[in-house]
C-alpha cells in the first residue's frame, strides 16, 4: 500500500492519460475530519524561534530594511498624528499641496463674483509661473475640475481661444482678466505658448 503523502501535490497539466480524478487539496473536506496529529509544545517553540530568526534575517536584507525604515515605520508615526486630525480639507491639502491651494484660490475669485459655473479660464503653463518666480504647479483641466468644479483650459489647446477669462502675473501677483478683446486673448495665448506646457 502506498504511503499517504503528508503534503498533497498539485498534479498539474502533464498527466499522461485520463484517469479517475482525486479531489483537489484546495477542495472543502466532505465532513468533519479527524484532527491532524498535534505538535508538541517544544517543537512548536523551536519553530516559533525559527520564525523570529527568519523575520530578523528578512528585515536584515538591505531593501527590506530600507522599506521598513523608510516606509512602514514612518507611516506608523504618521498614523499616530493623523488619527488626531481628520479634517477633510487638511487631508486634501496634505496630499495635493499647492496644486489644490492654487485651484481653490482661483475658484474663490470666481465664486465671489457668482460666476464660477459660467467661466472658462485660460491658465498659463507652470513654466510661465516659474519664469515669474512663482512656485505654482498648474493642474490640468480635468484635475482642476475635480478639485473645485471650475472649467479651465491650457494655452496649447486648440480650443484655448474659447476662454472668457485668463490669468497672468503682474508685479509678482496673479491678475484675473476677462476677455473683452479677442486679439488680446490670442496674444496672451501666443505669449503663454512660448513656455513649455507639461503635466
Amino acid at each position, binding site marked *: 500500500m502506498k504511503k499517504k503523502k503528508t*503534503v498533497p501535490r498539485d*498534479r498539474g497539466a502533464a*498527466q499522461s492519460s485520463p484517469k479517475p480524478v482525486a479531489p*483537489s487539496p484546495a477542495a*472543502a473536506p466532505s465532513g468533519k475530519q479527524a484532527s491532524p496529529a498535534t505538535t508538541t509544545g517544544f517543537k512548536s517553540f523551536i519553530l516559533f524561534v525559527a*520564525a523570529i530568526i527568519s*523575520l530578523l534575517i528578512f528585515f536584515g536584507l538591505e531593501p527590506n530594511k530600507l522599506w521598513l525604515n523608510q516606509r512602514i515605520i514612518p507611516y*506608523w508615526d504618521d498614523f499616530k498624528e493623523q488619527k488626531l486630525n481628520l479634517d477633510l480639507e487638511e487631508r486634501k491639502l496634505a496630499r495635493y499641496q499647492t496644486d489644490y491651494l492654487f485651484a481653490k484660490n482661483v475658484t474663490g475669485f470666481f465664486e465671489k463674483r457668482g460666476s464660477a459655473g459660467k467661466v472658462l479660464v485660460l491658465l498659463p503653463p507652470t513654466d510661465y509661473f516659474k519664469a515669474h518666480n512663482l512656485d505654482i504647479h498648474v493642474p490640468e483641466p480635468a484635475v482642476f475640475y475635480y478639485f473645485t468644479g471650475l*472649467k479651465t483650459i491650457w494655452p496649447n489647446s486648440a480650443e484655448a481661444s474659447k476662454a472668457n477669462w485668463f490669468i497672468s502675473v503682474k508685479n509678482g501677483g496673479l491678475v484675473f482678466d476677462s476677455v473683452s478683446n479677442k486679439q488680446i486673448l490670442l496674444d496672451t495665448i501666443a505669449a503663454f505658448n512660448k513656455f513649455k506646457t507639461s*503635466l
Partner: protein
Amino acid sequence: MSGIMIIILFTIIQFIAGFGLLNLFNIQLKPGLLISLAILLGVMVFSIMPFLLQLAYIPLTSTNVFISIIVACVLLNIKFKSGIARLQQLKATMRFKLKIYEIPYLVMIIFIVFVSAWRCFYFPPTPRDLTSGAEVIAEYAIREKTMINSVFSVNLETTNNVFKSPFITCLQIIYKYAGFEFGQVWLSTIVTCFLIFLYQALTLTVHRLFAGLLVLFFMAIPEMFAYTFMVLFDYANAAYFCLSVWFLYQFFQNQQRNYLAFAGLLMAFATYIRSETLILGCMMAPAIVWYHWKNKTGMVKGLISSAWFVVPSVLSYIISVTIYINKYLPVKYNIQSLVNKNLGDLSPLFDRFTDINSKLIFSDMGVGYYGYFIYFFLLLLLLELVIKRQLTPATRNWLYAVLVIYIGFPVMAYLLPLLDLNNSTKRGLFKIFPLMLLYMANNSLLVSWSQKIMKWETK
C-alpha cells in the same frame, strides 16, 4: 453609522454575493480560501452594478445603486437551499487553529496591512491617472447621478484616463455614497482578502513557516505595496488575474468544467479592470490546448476549453470598451489609433523586452521597485533545476503563467505603444509576482523541506 460598521456591513454583503456566485459555479474550497474568495467576488459584483445601471440609463442615485446590489445578492443566491447546506458544511468544517509559530508573521503582516489600510482611508485619491479619470467621474456621478456627466464637457486633451475602465468609478461611487469622502477603502478589502487567499493557497503545499515568510516577501515588494493604498487599476487587476490562473490550474487538476468556466469569469473581470488583460488571457490559451493534448482528450476539446476561458474576456472587452466607450461616452476615443500601425517592424518588441530586463528587473532601480523578490524566485528556480533536475507539472504550469507576463508585456507594448515603461509596464508587472509566489509554493525543494518539517513536527 461609523466607518468601521459600514465596512463590516459591506464585507458581509460582499461575502453573501460572492458565496452565491461560488455556489452557482459549484466551487468547492476549504473555508479559508472560500471566505476570502467570496469577499473578493463580492467586491467584483459591487464594481459591476453601477456600470450595469449606467448601461441601462438608470440614474445612479444612492437608492438605485444599493437596491441593485441587494438584487444582485438575491439573484446570485437563487440556489438558496444548497447555499444554506454549504454554509452548514462550512461551519462544521471550519477550524480556526493558529500555531504559535505563525504568530510572528501574522503580527507583522497585520501591522503592515493596517498601516496600508489607514493611508488608504486617510488620504484622498492621489495618482493623476485617477484624479483626471475615474475619480473625477465618480465625484460628478454622485452630484449628477450619471457617469456620463459634466466631466466630459471639460477640456480633456491632456488625458485619456476618462476612457479607462468604469471599475474604479463604480466602487468609488458606492463607497462615497456610503459616507467615505475619498472612497478607496475597497482597495484594502481586496488587499486583505487576496493576502489571506494567497496564504491559504500556499499552505496547501508548503509549511506554514514558509507560507508566512513568502507572503511577507510578497507584501514587501516596495512598488506593489505602494499600490495597496494608492488606488489604481493594477493591484486589483493582478489579484483577479492570479485568481483566474489559479482556478484554471484547479481545472487541470480536477477536470471539472465549472472550474474552467469560473476561471474564465475571473479573467473576464480582470479584463474589465484593465482591457489589455485580454491579450494575456489569450496567451494562457496554449496551456489549455497543451493540457488536453497531453491528456489525450483531443485538440478539439482543447479549443473548446480555450473558448470557455477566453470568450468571457472577449465579451467583457466588447461591453466595457467597444460598446461603452463608443456608444455611451459623448467624447470620441479612437482606440484603433492606439494600435501600432507598423507591425512589420519588430524592433519595439525587442527594445521593450531589453528595457524591462535592464531597467525594471536587473538594475538598482529594479531592486528599489521590486526588492529581491525576482532574485529569490530565480534562486529557487535555479536550485530546483540543479538539485532536483526536473520540474513538476505544477511548477511548469506556474512558470508558464510567469512567462506569459514576462513575454506578454513586451508584446503588449509592441501592439500598444502608449503602454510606457516607467508607468504602465512597471505597474503591469505586478501581475507576475503572485504567479511567482505560487510557483514558489510548488517548488520541489520548498515542498520537500515542508514535508520533512511536518514529519518531524508531528512525530
